[in-house]
């Protein structure tokens, strides 16, 4: 565990700030920043053995609680199907229509779900750090299904899994991420994960979506404003969604964004010939990419969603110590 020494000298005044991650239940998955490359590979290996079409009751009698404070289609359904494919029971709790609407705190809600018998808790939350807060107060594993702008580790893992299916290894991958990186938990999780394997990562976007400070997130990140530069030689291109409302009040107009940063068939040709076109979804056709790109042979968008199920099966099995 890394401990920050506030004082360098004199020696008698060393005070340390205890990390909240010190007492996180085993099996939790809060982010890709805090998980080792060995653990990542082990998860991907487990995922490769999972078959969502064949029910394996590894998690029979286990209760998986899905607590979603934000709308979600793929993450939610894929965690639910993953849990059920392992024979677990699932219960979905949404912030609307639950006691959350009555002003209950996050901790009181998770204590309640623990009390009704949850064995593992999957949380999607609009605030960064919410799953960590829950995990540091619980004795059951917590899975982060996306927290604010912070992390979305299961998405990064399923992206790694998808790339492995095409490239065999993650080592030295040339990855380009294009779009609204500032607001993206997917980008942060991907950067942490792939940089652990020595990936060459290029980040591309306008200053509104890609502040200079982004380069400090991991070692060896390359920032560029030029999409052409970013695409050249890329083996995988990860495109991120652009929300119109995030451009409100900014200098950049939607038209400018499309003109400079939209992925088109022409532009995609700058990347390696068999480069994978990835997108965490939901996609907005005609904005961050053209419809042709979304449906082109290089597009792995649907495959990513499909791979989400075995990867989340692996995450749940690991959480409950049943990963064999």
């Amino acid at each position, binding site marked *: 565990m890394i401990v*920050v020494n*506030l*004082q360098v*000298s*004199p020696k*008698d*005044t*060393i*005070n340390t*700030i205890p*990390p*909240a*991650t010190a007492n996180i239940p085993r099996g939790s998955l809060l982010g890709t*920043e805090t998980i080792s490359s060995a653990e990542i590979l082990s998860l991907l290996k487990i995922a490769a053995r999972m078959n969502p079409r064949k029910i394996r009751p590894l998690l029979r009698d286990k209760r998986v609680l899905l607590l979603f404070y934000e709308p979600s289609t793929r993450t939610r359904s894929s965690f639910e199907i993953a849990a059920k494919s392992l024979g677990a029971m699932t219960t979905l709790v949404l912030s609307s229509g639950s006691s959350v609407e009555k002003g209950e*705190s*996050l*901790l009181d809600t998770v204590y309640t779900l623990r009390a009704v018998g949850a064995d593992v808790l999957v949380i999607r*939350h609009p*605030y*960064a*750090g*919410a799953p*960590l*807060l829950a995990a540091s107060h619980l004795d059951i594993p917590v899975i982060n299904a996306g*927290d*604010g*702008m*912070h*992390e979305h580790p299961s998405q990064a893992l399923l992206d790694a899994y998808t790339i492995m299916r095409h490239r065999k290894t993650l080592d030295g991958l040339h990855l380009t991420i294009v779009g609204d990186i*500032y607001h993206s*938990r997917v980008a*942060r999780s991907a950067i942490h994960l792939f940089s652990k394997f020595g990936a060459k990562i290029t980040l591309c976007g306008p200053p509104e979506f890609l*502040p200079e*400070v*982004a380069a*400090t*997130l991991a070692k060896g990140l390359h920032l560029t404003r030029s999409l052409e530069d970013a695409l050249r030689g890329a083996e995988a291109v990860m495109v991120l969604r652009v929300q119109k409302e995030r451009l409100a009040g900014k200098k950049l107009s939607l038209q400018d964004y499309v003109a400079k940063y939209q992925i088109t068939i022409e532009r995609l040709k700058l990347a390696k010939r068999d480069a994978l076109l990835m997108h965490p979804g939901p996609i907005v056709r005609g904005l961050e990419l053209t419809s042709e790109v979304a449906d082109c042979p290089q597009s792995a968008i649907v495959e990513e969603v499909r791979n989400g199920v075995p990867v989340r099966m692996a995450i749940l099995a690991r959480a409950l110590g049943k990963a064999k």
Partner: protein
Amino acid sequence: MSQKATGNLLIRGGHVIDPAARIDAPMDILLRDGRVADIAPPNQLRDSVSESFDARELIVSPGFIDLHVHLREPGQSYKETIASGTSAAAAGGFTSVCCMPNTLPVVDSPEWVTWLQQRDRGAMVNVFPIAAATLASKGAVLTDFRALQRAGAVAVSDDGKPILNDAIMRETLRLASEINLPVIQHAEDTRATEHCSMNEGPTSFRLGLRGMSASAESSIVERDIRLAQQFTGARLHVAHLSTAESLKEVRRGKRNKVRVTCEVTPHHFTLLDEHVRDYNTNFKMNPPLRSAADREAILVALADGTVDAIATDHAPHALHEKVVEFERAMFGITGLETALALAITHLHREQKIPLFRIVELFTAGPSRVVNLKGRGTLVKGSHADVTIFDPKCRWRFEVAKSRSKSHNSPFDAWQLTGKVVATIVAGRIVYRLV
């Protein structure tokens, strides 16, 4: 020990540091009838009826003055009361505290200013109210400065809700300048900090938290100094200054003879934004913890005299307001009981800033900012407010033992050097280390 207000008290054998009077020498002090009756080199004072206080090995200083505390009354006594907050102040060596008006309701009338000072509030130290500059601190209609000052307000401020409108700020400075009343500004361009919960930088990016830029503070400091320059006698005080850029503005203002002063908090000279680390809400305050470069600049400014005062921005909050998601947590930490020890540990021992300067930042400096006559010094005839501390004592701060009603401190279990041994208000010992 007699605690009668009229009793005499002879403080013997201590080393007096009184920066206002340029004293840094062994001295004995006789307190009588709430005033300093005499101060003289050791063993010269004789007073047969005196109680005496043995201050050998200790520093005897004018009572500390905190320009920035939130006592939470009226309206939020679940966080703190005047009684509990001033009890914590006494334990921290503060004999006077200036309380901010962002209460429920806002202290924007002479009646509330009077109410804050009533004996029934149970204050253990002197309470000097700071009144709101605008009604309900809404930044629209100015309060009655003259009436507020007459009722006892020592300054006006819309702390927490900075005055953004240029015309309103200009009018505030103009009217306050006519009656020599300081205007305290929480410098933050809130139009640029919406939804932000910490400093903008690598840590906020990593944690996925929206960050407040340093310029959101310094742009307001720059504007306020520019406006203050327009009125002779206008006094602008920058609350909890936290960035290198703001310090540049204050330096420039002082060079141009603008009457601008500023305060810095112990947490800003001790901690960095990177210490937020895992969304620890006890490291969430406004202004936020800043970068290492900002802290460096603050340390330089504390040493070279640019900073006028150390103020705690003591901001107590209940557990349920802090043990929540980081972005939902309230801004602020408690600070009265750790201020001196953090100053001695980090400014004196680490940065080698002389004790004389540190005492100045707790006494003469803040006294000048809000014009507290006869306080912040121990010259004959001044108020008998005295802080006695041991600059070498090593101790461990345990927030569970805090006298504040709230426990939102990032310094729990910290090993610190420098401990208050006794706090004397108007000649009465209100705190004594056991």
